[in-house]
């Protein structure tokens, strides 16, 4: 609490039940990050949300892990000047998120990184597709999320034209421990947005050879891939998954992946003859990567 301003300290000491204190992270002496997780404050009560917004300094990054939010208090956050400047919002294991709350996320005009870990179901997820500037989206442990959500995100159409949707700007996606099936992995691989993904986490999923191949082939710029606890539909993890790993890969998590064969693991480090066509497409990828970096 020593870094808090006297007013904030007084307020927080008066209001908190002290399961833990909020943390302010002073990176650039403007408290750009505030962690309100596990504080015991009922942010579902609009008064608490309003008071918190009144006293906390300007920040880019707010975390409400394990909190409870109501529609009304969420609307207060979304419509506040501080809410509109948020670039990162962590709503992990948040109780009380409804369709209205998720729809209100569109008011966070600067939002780029959104974590909804274990917080929403298929019904609420529809609102995510309206977020048009998201860079990273974490839907892990949203156990009710299935194919239709992801399909909607990937093929968000208005009339006949493909509108800009949340997925088109994503560079990081986490769909671990959801109900998303093999069919969607192929769709991700085939979608235009796959080639922009840099980080993909799909822990504890089940692949067929064909979907794994399509997925990995499509994600040509991946630098980080996590498939911990995943498995093939047969007792083997499909070798095709490893055969098409992008050369850009820097981190690979196969922890507890079941049925990784010698052939499959061998592909990770295998030397192969680069064809002229492949070299051309690699030059293309490098140009795209340079474009992404400029963005």
């Amino acid at each position, binding site marked *: 609490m020593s870094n808090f301003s006297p007013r904030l300290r007084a307020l927080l000491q008066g209001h908190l039940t002290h399961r833990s204190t909020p943390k302010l992270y002073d990176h650039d002496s403007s408290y750009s990050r505030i962690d309100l997780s596990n504080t015991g404050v009922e942010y579902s009560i609009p008064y608490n949300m309003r008071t918190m917004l009144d006293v906390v300094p300007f920040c880019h990054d707010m975390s409400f892990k394990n909190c409870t939010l109501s529609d009304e208090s969420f609307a207060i956050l979304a419509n506040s000047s501080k809410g509109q400047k948020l670039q990162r919002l962590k709503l992990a294991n948040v109780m009380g998120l409804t369709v209205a709350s998720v729809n209100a996320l569109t008011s966070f005009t600067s939002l780029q990184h959104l974590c909804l870990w274990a917080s929403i179901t298929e019904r609420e997820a529809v609102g995510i597709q309206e977020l048009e500037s998201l860079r990273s989206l974490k839907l892990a442990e949203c156990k009710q999320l299935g194919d239709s959500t992801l399909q909607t995100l990937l093929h968000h159409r208005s009339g006949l034209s493909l509108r800009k949707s949340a997925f088109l700007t994503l560079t990081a996606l986490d769909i671990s421990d959801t109900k998303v099936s093999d069919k969607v992995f192929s769709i991700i691989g085939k979608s235009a947005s796959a080639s922009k993904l840099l980080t993909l986490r799909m822990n504890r999923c089940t692949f067929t050879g064909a979907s794994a191949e399509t997925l990995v082939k499509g994600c040509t710029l991946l*630098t*980080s891939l*996590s498939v*911990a606890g995943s498995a093939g539909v047969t007792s083997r993890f499909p070798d095709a998954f*490893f055969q098409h*790993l*992008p*050369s*850009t*890969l*820097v*981190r*690979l*998590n*196969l*922890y*507890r*992946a*079941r049925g*990784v*064969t*010698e052939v*499959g*693991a*061998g*592909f*990770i*480090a*295998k*030397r*192969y*003859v*680069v064809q002229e066509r492949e*070299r051309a497409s690699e030059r293309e990828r490098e140009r795209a990567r340079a474009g992404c970096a400029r963005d």
Partner: protein
Amino acid sequence: MRRYRCPALERLDLGATLISDTSVRALAALKNLQQLDLYGSQVSDETLLAVIRNNPRLEVLGLKYCSILTVDGTLTALRAALHVHTLSLRRAQWRSLELTMFLLALVEAPSGTEPLLPHLRFFEIDEPKQDRHALVDAIFRVRRARPLLDLQLVPNNTWHKPLVHI
């Protein structure tokens, strides 16, 4: 023109995949690994040496439950691992005397050579049983000689904590 598939790979977690020595040997062709977890793999002494020689920037190495590694082979391989700062040797299928020998190599180097793993900062082994006096003495010596090293004695029933962060 020949090229490796994932030449930039720096972090690789193969924990609990139960992959064979042949597979790990294939991975020795990688050159840029910095963090590698081989928990539960059937990696042999020779393969470990090959992986370490080919990846001189290796900093994190998980060898938990690598049951066919011998103490001599591991010592030989790790002498080449100059930058390793995090190491797990939990559930090494070694007798108490062998583990004692390994620990003493951390403090006693042959004349004219550096001690084993000069940059080691975190090292975990299983908690020794009560009657292993020589082992307990070796642990004490390591802690006294290398105060910067966090030597963790992990109880047997503790969950595996991944060393490689991805």
